[in-house]
Each structure stands twice: as structure tokens, then as C-alpha cells.
């Protein structure tokens, strides 16, 4: 944050300084997060759950106080490392990508601010501090999406993002207020009296909030509404695809790896709150309960996953496909949280951060190399022209699809599927998620075929990107593959770390029949998707004017999918039209009613002023003048005594003496 402040004051040409500052400070943050991680790791190795907090009082009114603070526990530590690491790679990437842009310094200023706020969200111990950083994150995303503000589409997209997420934040804030009023504290963990600790939860669970919900459940749902906006779940997903108007590093950082993950993180953070609720049926050995709140989360996530995947199938902009993919994967994460608990959802979050960032940066590299072209129908054959990009992109794509064994996506997605399968109450999500996996494989294959295979269809030849851009790609690719290792059932290190358990390595759990069957099923689904894609798109490279292969087969399905299932149009007709009408009404009221009142008051005052003036002239002035005249006359009278004639004076003297003498004598008589 300090870096962003300093950069804000720098002038445009000082690019090197700006970027060094930004990268330097984020690198420093990374170092710190490694230290924190190590600390937590050490604590975990000794068998205890590390949860250290630092709090201070920020506001005090009457008897209640609002505290802010920071917490360091496994969840925070993991997120810290992920955010700083991926962020640092993207910062380095941006130096190359934005090299031609003249607003270089401004870019890094916003980037630094974003990184600071995101880290703030992660380590916050107070719901209020989290909300404040949350809002800063929203602000910086607005600034970054609309970075090229001269483009009207970019400005509109930034506005849309901000307003949509704001809408979710209203409910979030309501949840915060409700929580504060019920428990008196907004700190998460506060030595036993925090809002996420058993004492407060017990209080919340027993209070009813209508519709069969307890207060805990209702608050949880309100907070989830905030996450819905920020993470682009149905129905507030509409801003995410339009947000691709921003520069590609922005898309990578914000809309793939970190900001949208903030919503998932939020749900993970307040998980105890959401899980504490009247369960629909008694909890078995599942770590995640089946409270009402969590059920809602699961369904929303699953629905989003499928909905977005469907739309992604029919898009032609390289970034837009990835955007819808992000929405879909976020749905997976939410479903994972709802079904399997914090560890399952967070694992997918971490793996997704890496391979989605990789994919976005790779897309950026492609766009850069194709002279800012973004339509996949005008690309092709880049496997030859941009080999490094191709390889890393392919790794990312396979990870996303969940290609078995070697790619992290496989393990994380399977974790979610497993949790879905084992959920005793709700069956629907499992099937939805499986269908979603099929679609994911399909549309990614389509995209790769269009972009990298076949032959080049663009106007000018393409070229590979500079080292400063491809190096991060390589690093991310490595992690996309390696991270899978820490989450397999054979060695569930990640899950154990988050939950404070010991992790054991056993191949046995891998070979457990149920799990083996699941692995086989998901692998089959992936291969199916890949096969479909290959069949339809393969090495053919249709010209841009020609219709898409799928479009030829099922045109009735193609059109709605391409038009994003008309969600935006729906909003336009209802919400936006309403607001336009409301705006007109308010304007009329303002002008006629309030304006009229103001004019009336003004008229009254003018009248009053006139009255005063009349009073003043006639009474006050008249009275005053009259008095002055009288005084003058009196003075004149008195002055006439001073005739200037000595003899008169003498006469008066003599008379006075006589009078005095008479009075004296008279009074002295007995």
C-alpha cells in the first residue's frame, strides 16, 4: 500500500522506478508471508492449531467498541503465500506487457494498491476491517478494469463491475450489522469471545430469523450474498466477462487468481458461522455440515458452474472464454465449500489460482504476439510461431480440465466431486458438477484448437513474447502440475494443514474402491470432453466468416449460448429500466416539489423583507425622526435661555436667590 501511495505521486515517465517499487514491495510481502507460513507450519508440525491474533480497539461508543485486528492461522498463511507469489509473477509479467503503454506508472500504482488491499482481506481478524479492505479491492478493480478509460466499453465495464459487486455488498453489510448487534463483536477470533468462536455461535444458533432459519444461517446467507457479487456467482456474474476490457495482467490477477477468490475466501473464513445452523439432518462424520446456509451455497455454486460453462462453449473472444471459465470454476469452489468444508474448497482455489493465472497470462502473450488481436477465429497455428506459450498454455488447459494424475486440477476437482458424492442429502449437485466437467473439457479443447492448431488466419504474422513475459508462464506451469501432489488422498497434506491434523501418506486411500471409481469416472468424463472437442474442431481452422462447427450441428442451441443466455438483456429490461424510470421520477420530484418548496420559501422571505422594509421606513424611521425633532426643539428651547445677554443672567440669578431665601426661611420656621 505504501508503494502505491508513493507511485501515485510519481510522474509518468518514471516507469522503472514505479515498477521496481511495486515489485520490490510485493516481493517483500512475499518474503514476509513465507516467514508467516513457516511459522504456522512449525506450529502445525508440533500438532497444534496455530491461530495468533492481534487486535486493537478502533472506535468506542458508549459501552460497545469496534475492534480491528489481524489473524494468522493456516488459512490466512496459505492465502498469503498464494496471493503474494502469483501477484509477484504477474507484476513481473506486466512490465513486459505494458511496456508500450504510456500510463505505465499509474498501472503499477493501482496494482500495488490492489495487492495491499487483498492481503488486508486475507489477514483481517475483524469482519469490519475485512469489509473495508474488500471495498478497496472493489475500488481498485474498478480502476484497473477501466484503465483504458478512453474506451467507452472499458469505462462501462468498470462501472458495471463496481455496481454489481456493490449490490452484493449491501447484503454483506447488512450481515455485518446484524452480526454486530447480536454478538457485540466483529472480531473473528478473540480468545474465546470472537464471533466465530463457539460462544457466539451458540448464541446465534438459538435465535430465529424467520423462514426456518436461525440467526447464524441468515447472517451467513447475507455474507454469502457479498461473496456472490465479488466472485461472480449466479445471478451477479454479469460483470466478470465484461471486465475483460481491462489489460490482460489485470484479468489474470484480479479475475482469475485473487479478487474473485476473495469471495470464496470470505465463505471459508466465516465457515463456522455458516456451518452452525439447524442441520437438515444429523451430521455424520462429515467435516462440513449440512446447514441451510451451506446448502444454498452449494446449489448456487453448482448452478453457476454449469451455467457459465454452457455459455463459454459459444464465445469467440479468447479472454471471454476464460472469463466464463473462471465463473464456472468459482461455482465449483463454492460447491466444494458447501459440500466438503474449508479444505476442499480452498484446495481448488489454490490450484485454480495458479492454472487460471497461467492461462490468462498465456492468453495475454498470445494477444501480444498477434498484435492485439483477441478473436480466436483470426488466430491459429500458433503452436509453431509461439512454442513456449503453446506448451505452457497446454499445461494450464489440461490442469483446468482435470486431466488425470499429473495435473493439480484433477486432484482438486476430484476432491469436490468426492464430497458431492458423499453428501447424504443433496444429490443434484454431483450430477451438475460432472456435467460441468464435461463442458469444461469441451470448450477448452475448442479454444486450443482454434488458437494453436491448424493454420494462421490473421493478417500479420505472429511472434513469440519476450522473456520477461514467458518466464512467469513457465513458473506457473510448474506449479500447475506440482500442486496436485499436496492434495491427493494419498497424502492429504493440504487438508490436514488447514484443519490442524497430522497428515499421513498412504497409498491405500488412493486405492479405496469408492475413490478409485470416482477417479475413473471423472477421467472418463474428461476424455469424453476432449474427444468431442477434437472431433468437432481438430485441425480444421474455419475462416472467421464460416459458422462454427457446433453451430452447424445445433444452431438452435448455439444462438442462445452465444448470446450469453440473455441474462444481461434480462437485467437491462428489469433492473436498469426500473432505475431509469426511478431516476426520472426523482428528478421530477426534485425539480417540482423540492424546487417548488425552495421557491416558496424564497418568496416568503422576500415578502418578509418587504414588510420589514415598510416597517422600517414608516415606524422606525418616523419614530426616530420625530424623537430627534422633539429633542431639537427642546434643545432649542433650552438654548434660548442662553440669550447671551448679561442682564438676563443677572435677573435669573436674583430670582433664584430670592426663591432660595424664601424656601430657607419658610423651612426654618417652627
Amino acid at each position, binding site marked *: 500500500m505504501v508503494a502505491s501511495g508513493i507511485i501515485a505521486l510519481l510522474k509518468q515517465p518514471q516507469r522503472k522506478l514505479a515498477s521496481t517499487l511495486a515489485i520490490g514491495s510485493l516481493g517483500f510481502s512475499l518474503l514476509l508471508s513465507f516467514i508467516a507460513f513457516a511459522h504456522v507450519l512449525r506450529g502445525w508440525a508440533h500438532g497444534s492449531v496455530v491461530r495468533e491474533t492481534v487486535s486493537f480497539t478502533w472506535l468506542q461508543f458508549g459501552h460497545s467498541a469496534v475492534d480491528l485486528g489481524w489473524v494468522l492461522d493456516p488459512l490466512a498463511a496459505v492465502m498469503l503465500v498464494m496471493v503474494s507469489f502469483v501477484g509477484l509473477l504477474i507484476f513481473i509479467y506486466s512490465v513486459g506487457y505494458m511496456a508500450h503503454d504510456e500510463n505505465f506508472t499509474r498501472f503499477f500504482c493501482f496494482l500495488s494498491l490492489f495487492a495491499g488491499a487483498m492481503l488486508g482481506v486475507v489477514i483481517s481478524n475483524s469482519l469490519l476491517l475485512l469489509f473495508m479492505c474488500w471495498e478497496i479491492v472493489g475500488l481498485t478493480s474498478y480502476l484497473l478494469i477501466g484503465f483504458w478509460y478512453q474506451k467507452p466499453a472499458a469505462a462501462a465495464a468498470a462501472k458495471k463491475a463496481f455496481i454489481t459487486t456493490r449490490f452484493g455488498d449491501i447484503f454483506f453489510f447488512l450481515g455485518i450489522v446484524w452480526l454486530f448487534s447480536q454478538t457485540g463483536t466483529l472480531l473473528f477470533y478473540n480468545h474465546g469471545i470472537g464471533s466465530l468462536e463457539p460462544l457466539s455461535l451458540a448464541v446465534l444458533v438459538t435465535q430465529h430469523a424467520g423462514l426456518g432459519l436461525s440467526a447464524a444461517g441468515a447472517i451467513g446467507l447475507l455474507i454469502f450474498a457479498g461473496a456472490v457479487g465479488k466472485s461472480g456467482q449466479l445471478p451477479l456474474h454479469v460483470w466478470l466477462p465484461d471486465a475483460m476490457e481491462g489489460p490482460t495482467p489485470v484479468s489474470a490477477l484480479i479475475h482469475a487468481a485473487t479478487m474473485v477468490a476473495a469471495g470464496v475466501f470470505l465463505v471459508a473464513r466465516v465457515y463456522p458461522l455458516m456451518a452452525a445452523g439447524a442441520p437438515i439432518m444429523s451430521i455424520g462424520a462429515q467435516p462440513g455440515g449440512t446447514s441451510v446456509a451451506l446448502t444454498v451455497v452449494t446449489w448456487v455454486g453448482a448452478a453457476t458452474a454449469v451455467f457459465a460453462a454452457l455459455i463459454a462453449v459459444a464465445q469467440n473472444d479468447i479472454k471471454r472464454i476464460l472469463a466464463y471459465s473462471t465463473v464456472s470454476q468459482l461455482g465449483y469452489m463454492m460447491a466444494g465449500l458447501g459440500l466438503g468444508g474449508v479444505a476442499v474448497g480452498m484446495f481448488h482455489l489454490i490450484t485454480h489460482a495458479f492454472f487460471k493465472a497461467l492461462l490468462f497470462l498465456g492468453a495475454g502473450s498470445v494477444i501480444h504476439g498477434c498484435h492485439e488481436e483477441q478473436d480466436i477465429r483470426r488466430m491459429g497455428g500458433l503452436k509453431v510461431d509461439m512454442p513456449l506459450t503453446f506448451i505452457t498454455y497446454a499445461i494450464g488447459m489440461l490442469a483446468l480440465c482435470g486431466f488425470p494424475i499429473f495435473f493439480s486440477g484433477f486432484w482438486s476437482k476430484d476432491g469436490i466431486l468426492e464430497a458431492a458424492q458423499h453428501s447424504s442429502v443433496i444429490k443434484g449437485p454431483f450430477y451438475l458438477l460432472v456435467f460441468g466437467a464435461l463442458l469444461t473439457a469441451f470448450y477448452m479443447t475448442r479454444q486450443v484448437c482454434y488458437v494453436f492448431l491448424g493454420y494462421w488466419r490473421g493478417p500479420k504474422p505472429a511472434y513469440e513474447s519476450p522473456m520477461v513475459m514467458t518466464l512467469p508462464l513457465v513458473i506457473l506451469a510448474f506449479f500447475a502440475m506440482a500442486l496436485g501432489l499436496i492434495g491427493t488422498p494419498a497424502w492429504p497434506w493440504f487438508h490436514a494443514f488447514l484443519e490442524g491434523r497430522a497428515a499421513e501418506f498412504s497409498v491405500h486411500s488412493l486405492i479405496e474402491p469408492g475413490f478409485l471409481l470416482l477417479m475413473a469416472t471423472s477421467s472418463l468424463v474428461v476424455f469424453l470432453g476432449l474427444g468431442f472437442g477434437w472431433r468437432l474442431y481438430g485441425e480444421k481452422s474455419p475462416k472467421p466468416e464460416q459458422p462454427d462447427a457446433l453451430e452447424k450441428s445445433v444452431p438452435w442451441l448455439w444462438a442462445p449460448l452465444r448470446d450469453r443466455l440473455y441474462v444481461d438483456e434480462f437485467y437491462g429490461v428489469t433492473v436498469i429500466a426500473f432505475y431509469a424510470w426511478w431516476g426520472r421520477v426523482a428528478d421530477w420530484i426534485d425539480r417540482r416539489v423540492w424546487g417548488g418548496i425552495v421557491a416558496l420559501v424564497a418568496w416568503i422571505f422576500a415578502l418578509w423583507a418587504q414588510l420589514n422594509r415598510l416597517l422600517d421606513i414608516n415606524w422606525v424611521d418616523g419614530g426616530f425622526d420625530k424623537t430627534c425633532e422633539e429633542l431639537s426643539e427642546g434643545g432649542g428651547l433650552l438654548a434660548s435661555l442662553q440669550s447671551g445677554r448679561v*442682564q438676563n443672567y443677572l*435677573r435669573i440669578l*436674583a*430670582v433664584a*436667590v*430670592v426663591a432660595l*431665601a*424664601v424656601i430657607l*426661611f419658610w423651612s426654618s420656621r417652627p
Partner: protein
Amino acid sequence: MNAVFYILAALTLAGGLATVLLKQLVHCALAVTVAFAGLALLFLQLDAQFAGFAQILVYIGAVAILIVFAILLTRGSELPKDGVFSKTWFLGLVIAAAVFAVLGWAVLASVSAVPQQNAVPSVTVRDIGIALVGRYVLPLEIVALLLTAATIGAVIVAMHEKERPR
């Protein structure tokens, strides 16, 4: 009551009346001199010899002369056109009569209360001199100062104004 007293009183009062009533200023000045003389004789009759002679010396010898000089310098010999008495002379007369009435009444009403002493006081000039420089030395000096100031003041007031440069 002495017959001398009545004569002297009549003389004095006549002189006074004449002063006030005569038209010509010079005549008034002479009449007032007569009044002064009558008063001096009354002082003598009251065994205040020193006061009587002082009266003659000062009043008749200086003040009357002074008055004549003033009449000379202000051309008092010319009679004014509108008459010598002011337009409201009656009011003045009334006031004077009122004053006399009050004074007379005061005198007569308090006659019985005033102590009488008929012995003739033996006052020599030596006694007066001793009293002047003994008991009354302060008034003496102050009066001396006063006379000096008055003289200087009168000279300055009546001096011809020098031509001031404009």
C-alpha cells in the same frame, strides 16, 4: 435712633437712586460718588474709622475716577436712540423689589435674636496693623497677589490690539 443716622441714610439712598435713574452717564457717575461719600460717613458713625477713610480713598479716589475714565473711553456721553432703560425694565424692578422684600423681612423677623452690644470699641490703627500682619497675614498676601493679577489683567484686556501679521 440718631438724627445723624437718618440724614446720612437719606443721603446715601438718594445718591443711589440718582445713580440708577439719571439719563446722562456722567451724572450717574457723580451721583454714585455721593453715595460712596454717604457710606463713608456712615462707617465713621459706626466707629469704623479706618474703614471709612479706606472707603474714601479707594472708592471715591480710585473707583469713581475709573468709572469716569471708562465713560470717557466708551463715549458714554452720547445717548442711545432707544432709551436708557431696557424694554423689560418693569420685570427688573419687580425682581429688585422682591429681593428687598425678602431681605427686609429677614432682618425684621430676626431682630430679636440678634445680640446687641452698645459699647464703643476702641480700635486703633496700630491694632489694625498688628491684626493685618498677624492674624490676617494670609489674606493680606493673597489680596496683594490678587491686586497684581487684576492690574496686569486689566492692562492686557484694555490694551490696543497689536496688528497681527495676516
